[in-house]
């Protein structure tokens, strides 16, 4: 009992510390990477390669005056930044980051809390994450903040649907809601979920980009339209909390996608070194998101909604239906059949989209094809 309590405490503190210390590094990495892709230099004055820049920024933000603009709704304005950060950190609690290790003759799960409804827990927390943006937008007493808050929350609610539907397919494949079990089932299937759930993976990738409010889906803080969206009126440390929340969320999402689709901590080849492969996969994901951000221009709001409701939701429903049918009919071969079927389905969806876009451009040449669709 005592051992378990101490172990849980140590794990919780460690995970918190590691995830939080990722944040400044990720900010530096993103600035450097995007600069490199845009043929700029990026931060290079503070420390070697500008590595100390995020620390300097953080210190600046923390010692800045805390401004309460007149006219803000004080309590809500105060609470909103916390509510955008806490769900992201709390969600990390159920993510397994390594196979169980033995310490002092006891087995310790490399996971803060091994709950048997881990997947549902994460979905529930991500539905609470909306409040940060909504309340910040409303309490700031600024029309651009309100617009940003409404946009962000509508976007997050819409994209929770395809996320949930794709995750259900994984649950069908695993037969359990525990994230540990998801990783173990991928080991026992001998194939990572990305293959039998290829379409689900693509859908989740796009949807989480929208859920994270990152470019090209950062409509809630589109600086060319609504100043900075829901955090326009925030400064100093409260602004830093929104910023940190965004990056913590990114780490959490990357870890979740790694667990759901990429075999969690398992090594693709070579020996299984604890944490190493997990970190490599997480960083691969984060780099992908940064690449996407540097590549695609921001979409229009109606394009965003159309992509979510007209493309991703039907596609994830099709994926779910196919998964369910093949699992029932395929028996022991279900995973192998799915691996083929899912890629076929993904190609099919892509072709249908391409045809639809071509048709639309032909009938209305003035309209640009919706970005992010197809391919």
């Amino acid at each position, binding site marked *: 009992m005592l051992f378990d309590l101490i172990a849980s405490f140590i794990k919780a503190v460690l995970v918190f510390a590691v995830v939080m210390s990722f944040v400044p590094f990720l900010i530096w990495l993103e600035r450097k990477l995007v600069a490199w892709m845009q043929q700029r230099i990026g931060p290079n004055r503070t420390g070697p390669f500008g590595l100390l820049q995020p620390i300097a920024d953080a210190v600046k933000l923390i010692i800045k005056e805390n401004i309460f603009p007149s006219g803000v*709704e004080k*309590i*809500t304005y105060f*609470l909103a930044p916390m509510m955008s950060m806490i769900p992201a950190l709390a969600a990390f609690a159920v993510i397994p980051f390594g196979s169980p290790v033995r310490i002092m003759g006891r087995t310790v799960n490399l996971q803060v809390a091994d*709950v*048997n*409804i881990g997947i*549902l*827990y994460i*979905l*529930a*927390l991500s*539905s*609470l994450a*909306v*409040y940060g943006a*909504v*309340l910040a*937008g*409303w*309490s700031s007493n600024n029309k651009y903040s*309100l617009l940003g*808050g*409404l946009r962000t*929350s*509508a976007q997050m*609610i*819409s994209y929770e649907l395809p996320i949930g539907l794709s995750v259900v397919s994984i649950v069908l494949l695993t037969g359990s*809601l525990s994230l540990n079990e998801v990783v173990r089932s991928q080991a026992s299937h001998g194939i990572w979920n990305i293959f039998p759930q290829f379409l689900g993976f693509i859908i989740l990738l796009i949807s989480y980009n929208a859920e994270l409010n990152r470019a090209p889906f950062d409509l809630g803080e589109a600086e060319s339209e609504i100043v900075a969206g829901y955090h326009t009126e925030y400064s100093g440390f409260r602004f830093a909390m929104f910023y940190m929340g965004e990056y913590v969320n990114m780490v959490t999402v990357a870890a979740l996608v790694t667990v759901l689709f990429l075999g969690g901590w398992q090594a693709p080849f070579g020996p299984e070194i604890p944490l190493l492969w997990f970190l490599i996969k997480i960083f691969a994901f984060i780099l992908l998101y940064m690449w996407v951000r540097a590549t695609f221009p921001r979409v229009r*709001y*109606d394009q965003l*909604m*159309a992509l979510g409701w007209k493309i991703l939701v039907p596609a994830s429903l099709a994926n779910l239906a196919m998964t369910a049918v093949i699992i029932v009919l395929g028996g022991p071969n279900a995973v192998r059949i799915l691996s083929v079927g899912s890629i076929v389905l993904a190609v099919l969806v892509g072709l249908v989209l391409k045809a639809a876009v071509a048709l*639309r451009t032909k*009938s*209305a040449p003035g*309209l640009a094809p919706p970005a992010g669709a197809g391919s």
Partner: protein
Amino acid sequence: MTWLTFLIVSGIAVIFAGGLIFSRNAVHGAMCLVASFCAIATLFLLLSAEFIFVVQIAVYAGAIMVLFLFVMMLLNVQGQEGALAGRAPGQLLVALALGAALLGQAVWLVARGGEIISRPARIPAGFGSPEDIGTALFTRNLLPFEITSLVLLAAMAGAVVLARKAGLSPKPNGAPAGGKPE
């Protein structure tokens, strides 16, 4: 341990429920309700009903209350506090009568509670995992479940019909004609 958790969590639930009633600001009230929902969800967890715990948070605290907040923000209820706080004639009397009835019912239940509460539950201990709920929902209660979804679908179609204005019908090529969707 369980008792202590129960006392703390139910205390939180009651306090925030009070906050919902007494707060003058509609958005504060909604936030109190969210907190209360989360506390009640924890009570479900104490009853080993994990699935209901998650659904309570995801559906009530997450989805429904966000939509409530949407409506409040779009209508800017805060500015019309006075209008909302206005009283209908005889409201106090009706409220007192209804409140008294509710209180009487509660007292009666507590007084006779021994008989009602001590009846053995019809579900086995530990019931409430996602498997249990799913099995119950999709075998024995399939018909009510399907009927509920049909009713919800009808309600949704009705909402679409009511919300549609003549000028807002989409153009043939699918371009949005009116304001933004949502």
